[in-house]
């Protein structure tokens, strides 16, 4: 029985008169891999930004595990269990790979300013555990030997993995991925697919924006299709790909060749 982990109802986000997200409804179920697709400019990244708290919604509701989160600031939303990666990769460039992941773990640690002043067992234990967790995550994404390297010197594909490791360090329930496969060749994309399955197997629900339709069709349990800021279809991958509205949105006009045939 599928239970929703994230529910958007009537979500509206405007920028100076333009409705980037227009009365959007969307449901993501717990434990699934859910893709958010649509033509360029359909509001996908904006939706992710609203969910993660980078933007405030103008109207509508975002419920995470039943709690309303739409007016919460980004850092609180991360504490609640939603973390993310970014379309344009936002690593901490001059810090090491390990430090990037450690920062991801920030919300799971408890040391405050006063506790840093004197060495104490709580902080020591916490730091130790955090470091081990970070090394484990780096191994999980295949960056174990790059821990002390500056993040900015990583190859592009490795930077994307690092972003994922960092986002996982907080032990989120829901992970948002904004075009994780962008700029990857087929080999890298396959590796990414394997990685994403492993993330899902760890109990993390995935919501990803992607343009690579092969990836989307292969990996998604359910898909939401956006156009002009509102959803035009939502459901299992196969049925969505046959949906005439979806085909129109992508190809600009009704056609017999559904885009399932373009694979």
């Amino acid at each position, binding site marked *: 029985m599928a239970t929703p982990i994230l529910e958007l109802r009537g979500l509206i986000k405007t920028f100076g008169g333009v409705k980037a997200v227009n009365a959007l409804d969307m449901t993501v179920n717990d434990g699934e891999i859910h893709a958010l697709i649509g033509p360029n400019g359909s509001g996908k990244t904006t939706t992710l930004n609203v969910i*993660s708290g980078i933007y405030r919604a103008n109207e509508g509701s975002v419920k995470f595990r039943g709690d309303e989160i739409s007016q919460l600031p980004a850092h609180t939303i991360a504490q609640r269990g939603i973390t993310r990666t970014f379309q344009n990769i936002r690593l901490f460039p001059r810090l090491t790979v390990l430090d990037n992941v450690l920062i991801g773990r920030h919300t799971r640690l408890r040391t405050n300013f006063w506790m840093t002043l004197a060495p104490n067992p709580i902080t020591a234990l916490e730091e130790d555990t955090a470091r081990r967790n970070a090394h484990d995550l780096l191994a999980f994404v295949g960056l174990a030997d790059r821990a002390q390297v500056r993040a900015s010197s990583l190859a592009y594909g490795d930077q994307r993995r690092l972003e994922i490791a960092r986002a996982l360090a907080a032990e989120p329930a829901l992970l948002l991925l904004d075009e994780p496969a962008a700029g990857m060749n087929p080999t890298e994309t396959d590796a990414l697919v394997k990685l994403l399955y492993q993330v899902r197997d760890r109990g993390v629900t995935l919501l990803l924006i992607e343009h690579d339709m092969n990836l989307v069709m292969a990996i998604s349990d359910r898909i939401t299709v956006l156009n002009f800021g509102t959803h035009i279809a939502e459901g299992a991958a196969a049925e969505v790909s046959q949906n005439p509205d979806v085909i129109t949105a992508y190809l600009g006009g009704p056609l017999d060749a559904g885009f399932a045939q373009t694979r």
Partner: protein
Amino acid sequence: MNRRGAVVAVLLVACALVPFVVHSQYVLQVTDTALIYAIVVIGLGILLGFTGQMSLAQAAFFGMGAYASAIASTTLGWSPWISIPFGALFAAAIGAAVGYPCLRLSGHYLALATIGFGIIVQLVFINARSLTNGPDGINSIPPPHLGSLALDTYQTYFYVAYGALLISVYIAWRVKHSRIGRAFEAIRENEIAAQAMGINATHYKVLAFVLASAFGGLAGGLIAHMTRFISPDSYSFDQSVIFLVMLVIGGSATITGAVTGAILLTFLPEFLRPLKDSYIMIYGAAVVLMVIFMPEGIVGLVRRLIPSYQAPPAAPMHATNSIADSA
């Protein structure tokens, strides 16, 4: 103890012997001043170097610590051992009050707000005569005592300043290598990503600001009880600028850089004094040259020459066209 630790320990002990080796009052005065300025610059380093937030009000907090401490020990008769920390706390409290609204701004807006704040504070020092004695300043500030020994020479005060500096370095070091320090650096590197990882950026920026104010205020209290006379002239925007230059030249992302910059740029004008009137001019030219040829400050340069260390990140200097926050 590893080799690096041993080197550091030897250096610390060697420095502690300075007053026994150096007898010139003049050199000791400059040294004591340099140590105290180093504390100010460490504070600025936490705010600008670690967290990437610009402040040009560091001299204002330096002044607030000086005045609070001086007034407490002259008018209220407190012992300097109490009034100096009081100066730090007072500056920190003002920092918290001012920091919270200001740190929602970023980049040059924040810099401007701190400039404005600093100028207003100096004007208060000049005009609130009943409290601060106005342009005439406050004199007869008592020195601290150890039992019956008055620490009123540059030799003896060296240890007060040196001790305070060591404590400051310790605190800054512990903060840097903690979850707090990582949060600071995350904010500097990419504030939006930091927020997305659960870091409450405003909270940490205010914390950094309060720490910078506290260090500035502590240094202010120390200088008041060393020179035993303070006046508003010393706590100007120009002085804030000098602290900034010290930090950047030394290497803003590290504590070593802050201390090095402060010491170097306190001594440099004195070395140039034989050039008589032109010395400050040459100082200005030297600053320009140093910025051109040492992009990551002195510390960065040294670390490049020692291959085993990676050069540390310098202060927020994205090669972009605008001062605007990394969006």
